[in-house]
């Protein structure tokens, strides 16, 4: 399998040139995502989710008399629950369609990335379905998130 044509396939120079020209042509003509609109939508949807989080946080602090750490945990739990619930109700993917990164980055997006494969792969059983596929999307986020935090921790340790 060598799509680049540099391997054993007989491709003359002219063919290579046609391919290159085509790729450039496709790239130029391709319908693009509306970056500005997407950014604005991500800003507002992401902002809305964070505002809801802040509201929950304030409620936790003023009404339940929780300290900062407890209030943060309280907020995370509620937001994760809401993300999972909206995913189960089939709403979160519609929010994601408009929100883009705005609904992916907050913790609700993380809940969505775990619950959506869990729902979908239940049919393959609880071990090789749900169990194995649960982190198929969130897994890379965890790996690189934790790796980065270790790295940052090390840097902090040495420059402290």
């Amino acid at each position: 399998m060598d799509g680049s044509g540099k391997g054993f396939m007989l491709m003359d120079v002219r063919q290579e040139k046609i391919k290159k020209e085509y790729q450039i042509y496709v790239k130029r003509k391709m319908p693009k995502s509306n970056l500005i609109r997407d950014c604005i939508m991500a800003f507002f949807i992401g902002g809305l989710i964070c505002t809801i989080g802040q509201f929950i946080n304030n409620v936790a602090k003023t009404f339940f008399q929780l300290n900062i750490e407890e209030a943060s945990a309280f907020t995370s739990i509620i937001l994760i629950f809401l993300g999972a619930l909206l995913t189960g109700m089939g709403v979160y993917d519609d929010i994601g369609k408009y929100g883009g990164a705005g609904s992916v980055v907050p913790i609700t997006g993380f809940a969505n990335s775990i619950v959506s494969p869990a729902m979908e792969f239940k049919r393959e059983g609880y071990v090789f379905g749900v169990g194995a596929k649960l982190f198929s999307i969130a897994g890379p986020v965890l790996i690189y998130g934790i790796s980065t935090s270790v790295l940052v921790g090390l840097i902090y340790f040495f420059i402290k």
Partner: protein
Amino acid sequence: MSNRIGGQTIKLENPPCILSRATIVGKKEGEGPLGEFFDVVLKDDYFGEKSWEKAECRMFQEAAMLAITKAGKQVQDINYLFGGDLLNQIITANYAARNLGIPFFGLYGACSTLTESMSLGAITISGRYADLVLCATSSHFCTAERQFRYPLEMGAQRSPTAQWTVTGAGAFLLSNDDKPPYITYITTGKLIDYGITDANNMGAAMAPAAAAAIKAHFEDTQQGPDAYDLIVTGDLGSFGRDLAIDLLKKEGYDIADRFIDCGCEIFSDDQDVHAGASGCACSAVVFGAHILKNMEEGKYKRILLLSTGALLSTTSVQQGESIPSIAHAVVIDMNRG
């Protein structure tokens, strides 16, 4: 004497006819502009089954049975079933063939399966190795999404060039009867790869294959676009369709005035499918329900039908390989000769 003309084309000595056909589609497809023409429209994605895979299999099977009964035939009258689908190891076609009990050739041509199966079926009948051949194919949005992309409820954005896999199945019964429409020519495509690696841009990957097959057909038969009332591709989508027109224009063929793509026909713009539809069922249900009906009503006399397939896998995409594509052409003619 061989009936081959040119490098890639066969002129069928005994052109088989399309005796009957059946189309089944999902709910979204039923809500589209062609909704009223399909034989069966599903109420939901599950079709009363426990999984989407089973639902797809049932669509395949029921489309096959419907095509057989519409022609007044029995399952045991059918000599061969040529069929395939998009799923790994073509499980839909395999399980359906298990239940149907017809001698079976399983095909994988991705979305080119319709014309691939019709080509092989037509050759088999023309060569007098069969009287009745069933050609069937299916795809399902949910089974394709989970195999090729993300879980359905995952909140990811789709790119503007992404296409929507059609939920549906189409079956066509070919026979040696003398009843229009006929399959008169076959042009078998070569694998074409112009180095497109973006799996969300399959229209761009497949457009060169479609253009190459159309060009080969014109050259082999020494006919131009004028010989056809309509040239139909399977699932290039709106972007791929424009690319195919441009590529053929460079070769000196202007097909724009008689060229449609099934992927641009089945959904309306407000159904949010981005660049259009795709999937094995796309060309099958649009051709079966819409185009053949127009041919019978006399709107078109002779058409060139190409199903287009992007032959990628999740492994090849992840390893950064480009997407080889193919298109097979068949000529559907209301006249036999």
